[in-house]
């Protein structure tokens, strides 16, 4: 699954640490999601969408 997390975070001027704090996860988690090494669960994906105030499909894209 591809995602635009890094770009969206950069647009808002947020650090990984800040986003991790907002999501209540570790920086490693944010980094792993951004680099595509880990696909978040649906609840975490929804939390990410809520923080960015965007629909989930504008952040995560299916590989197909």
């Amino acid at each position, binding site marked *: 699954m591809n995602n635009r997390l890094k770009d969206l975070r*950069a647009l808002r001027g947020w*650090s*990984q*640490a800040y986003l991790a704090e907002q999501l*209540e*996860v*570790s*920086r*490693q*988690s944010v*980094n*792993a*999601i951004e680099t595509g*090494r*880990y696909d*978040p*669960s649906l609840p*975490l994906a929804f939390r990410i969408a809520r923080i960015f105030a965007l629909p989930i499909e504008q952040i995560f894209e299916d590989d197909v």
Partner: protein
Amino acid sequence: MQAICRSQTKAARRYVQRLGAIGLIYLATVWVITRYVHQHRPTGAKLFTLAAVPAFDVVAMIAVVGIYLRDEADEFKRHEVVVSILWAIGFTLALMAFIDFLRSYHSIAAPPPFMEFIVFWLTMALVQGIQSFRNRVRADE
């Protein structure tokens, strides 16, 4: 283990403390029971009961991992631990199958007692260390 030590979550700190405590209890239990069995040579039900005691510590250690997986709020950290457990189970079972095959044809002697316990936890710690290295984060952007 190191990866979890560096983590700041409460669940991880409790996990390390509990696992360390039960690990020490396990070593002490094995040492005491081994000495007792060597000195008193118990047989029958008594020997079976004594042999079962260290197994409770092993169950307790697995329970500690289960409690950590339940309490850890960071799903990526949980994922790392699950991956480590799978590697540890896979490696330990594969090694045991390999050794047992050789033993069944009398090619090698029996491995030291409690070897699988040590192999399992060392493999788990090693895989966690590798994951920690692979997933390390550099200076924040």
